[in-house]
């Protein structure tokens, strides 16, 4: 059990370290071990903390963290997270599991759709670029013909 926890933590950690939300992957992996949903959520929250703190230090050093106006989001988010967490302590594990399942299904589908959309955009950009290159390449040729 403990070995599997380390392995699943490691896999989800790799995804998390790449900035893709390792936490959302950790819970479905841990659910293979039949750990109750609320326990998995506790594990997810606590294991996220050390990595989050370390990553933040690096991001601050690289000046990627923006603090302007961020209080408008942080303060209400802290209050509602308290409400959400208290509510989770009082809900049935089965219901929590269903909610989480719906959530990652939506996030997964959205991510899949987006990955195809981004590729399409790149293709379109590439074509435009190619066309411009062709036009540029044809210009001296045409002018040569006309003269």
């Amino acid at each position, binding site marked *: 059990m403990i070995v599997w926890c380390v392995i699943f933590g490691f896999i989800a*950690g790799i995804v*998390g370290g790449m900035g893709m939300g390792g936490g959302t992957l*950790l819970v479905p992996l841990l659910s293979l071990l039949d750990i109750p949903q609320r326990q998995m959520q506790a594990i997810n929250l606590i294991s*996220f903390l050390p990595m989050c703190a370390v990553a933040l230090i690096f991001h601050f050093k690289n000046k990627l963290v923006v603090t302007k106006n961020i209080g408008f989001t942080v303060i209400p988010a802290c209050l*509602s997270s308290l409400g959400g967490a208290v509510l989770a302590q009082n809900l049935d594990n089965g219901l929590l599991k269903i*909610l989480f399942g719906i959530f*990652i*299904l939506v996030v997964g589908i959205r991510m*899949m759709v987006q990955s195809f959309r981004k590729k399409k955009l790149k293709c379109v950009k590439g074509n435009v670029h190619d066309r411009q290159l062709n036009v540029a390449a044809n210009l001296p040729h045409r002018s040569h013909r006309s003269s």
Partner: protein
Amino acid sequence: MTANKKVLCVAGGLLGGFINGLMGGGGGVVIVLLLTGLYGLSAKKAQATALLVILPLTVISAVVYIIGGADWGNVLSTSAGFTVGGAVGALLLNKLPSVAVRRIFALLLIAGGIRMLFF
């Protein structure tokens, strides 16, 4: 920042925080959307800044879950793996094709979601 935007920032924060507390994670998805959409941050800055938003609310929710009762053996072993994996992931970040990784991740989430809902 206009008053309308401020209201939306507060509403988005409320939603992200609530999801993160209720499900023990996942609030980051909402917060990143909010930071790119309303704060106008680039994807990279939004991801970095989202951590700053999520850290304090994760501490708060974690305390609630710990009071509710946490199995420390599982917590510590998973955290150890997660932290080491996180360092490996950060090192690999620019060495793997990100679209492919993203799709594999999306597939795992979809499979995980179906399993959690129906099995």
